[in-house]
């Protein structure tokens, strides 16, 4: 009998780690990622003969609280039917009682991997615009993500953009069983609490809650809003900060709060002290820097008040129009107009040159 190699042992350990999917229509192919609450696997849906991403709770959950949260996550995301939000296909329990759900398997790269120094800025901004639109849609349905970061944005092979990992969003959005919670009842609770209801009553509402679960601050520090880092009550403007932090990454290639080994860093996050993007790269346009800094302003009141306003400024920038975050000098206005109308200026100048040359020619 020959001894098993380390590789074989490693594979066997991995297989033992796989959840038992007996009784479901799925079979595991491989592990894709490990998250805070559960693991995500590439699974094959035998009934529909397609690959899906299967998320299953992996950490011990004696109280059943995490299972309930994961179930709520599945319910909330299932309601967010938008091309920019990863769709949920199925939810259920494994034979051992653990909750799982399946969602679209997105092949591609995370925004973190997709962004390369040579990627044209307008291309990145167009992708970013679609992220903003997806988040705006979620807000209009009363859902805030709370963990927006480049690693949670997938860019598919055909340029599709999907916002992933809505796990933390649940804690902020629903405090009752979503299946029995109507938009009206949530709207009622929001208005009782005196909080804004983005998107109006018909579009749903949300109840901002302290972002702590059992004393834990949720989110990713490098992209976290100051109020989130301080453990305060958050609302949809914490996602505006998250979007601004993603824009910061797209512009500079780094997170707004990157140095965690420094003792001052946690304090910097709580105060929202960010190094301006142009400090990292002087080629970043001032108008874009202003948009970014407005979105990640330390005070939520100083940020864009909705994802729609943020998107409007990004679109205006792409179209060569003035943006609300930046007051231009007359010289900058002229330069922007010239750059936007380069071709027409070129033809008019060509016309004048031709006329002048014809005059000279006639004079000879």
């Amino acid at each position, binding site marked *: 009998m020959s001894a098993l190699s380390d590789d074989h042992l490693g594979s066997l350990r991995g297989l033992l780690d796989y959840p038992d999917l007996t009784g479901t229509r799925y079979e595991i192919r491989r592990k894709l990622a490990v998250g805070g609450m559960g693991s995500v696997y590439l699974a094959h849906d035998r009934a529909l003969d397609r690959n899906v991403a299967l998320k299953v709770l992996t950490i011990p959950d004696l109280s059943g609280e995490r299972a309930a949260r994961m179930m709520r996550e599945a319910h909330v995301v299932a309601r967010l039917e938008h091309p920019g939000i990863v769709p949920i296909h199925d939810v259920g329990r494994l034979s051992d009682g653990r909750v799982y759900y399946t969602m679209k398997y997105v092949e591609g790269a995370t925004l973190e991997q997709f962004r390369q120094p040579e990627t044209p800025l307008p291309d990145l901004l167009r992708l970013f615009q679609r992220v903003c639109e997806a988040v705006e849609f979620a807000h209009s349905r009363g859902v805030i993500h709370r963990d927006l970061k480049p690693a949670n944005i997938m860019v598919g092979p055909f340029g599709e953009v999907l916002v992933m990992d809505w796990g933390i969003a649940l804690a902020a959005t629903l405090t009752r069983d979503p299946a029995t919670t109507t938009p009206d009842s949530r709207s009622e609770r929001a208005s009782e609490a005196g909080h804004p209801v983005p998107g109006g009553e018909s579009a749903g509402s949300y109840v901002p809650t302290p972002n702590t679960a059992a004393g834990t601050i949720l989110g990713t520090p490098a992209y976290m809003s100051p109020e989130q880092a301080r453990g305060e009550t958050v609302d949809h403007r914490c996602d505006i900060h998250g979007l601004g932090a993603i824009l910061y990454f797209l512009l500079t290639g780094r997170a707004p709060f990157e140095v965690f080994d420094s003792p001052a860093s946690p304090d910097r996050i709580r105060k929202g002290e960010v190094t301006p993007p142009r400090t990292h790269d002087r080629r970043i346009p001032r108008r874009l820097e202003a948009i970014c800094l407005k979105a990640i302003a330390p005070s939520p009141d100083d940020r864009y008040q909705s994802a729609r306003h943020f998107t409007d400024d990004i679109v205006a920038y792409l179209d060569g129009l003035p943006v609300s975050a930046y007051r231009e000098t007359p010289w900058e206005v002229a330069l922007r107009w010239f750059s936007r109308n380069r*071709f*027409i200026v070129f*033809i*008019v100048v*060509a*016309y004048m040159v*031709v*006329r002048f040359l*014809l005059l000279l*020619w006639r004079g000879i």
Partner: protein
Amino acid sequence: MSKPVLGLILGAVLGALDGLTALFYPETAPQIVGIVIGSTVKGVIAGVIIGFVARKYQSLPIGIAVGLAVGLILAYLVAMMPDEQGNHYYVEIMIPGALVGLILGYVTQRYGRLPARAGH
């Protein structure tokens, strides 16, 4: 403003300005009114044609090519008419005329409202 109307107005303005450049040539002074009116009419015709093309085809290359062609053809028709001494001014009229057509083609493609499509 619709694309044909935009073409008409811009064509009239550019045509008039183009005609006024004849003031740089003292020998054309006696005919300046006729030149300006003719040039304006030429601009209006070019603008309307190019505007209608822009309404039908939303393509910058097509708009520019059509603008250039229409500008050249109309300018050629004007340049065929000799002055009182029997001189022709093909170069002086056709090159600027083509550039005016180019401007019209570009502007009517980029600006101006398209007609609303009938919905289902």
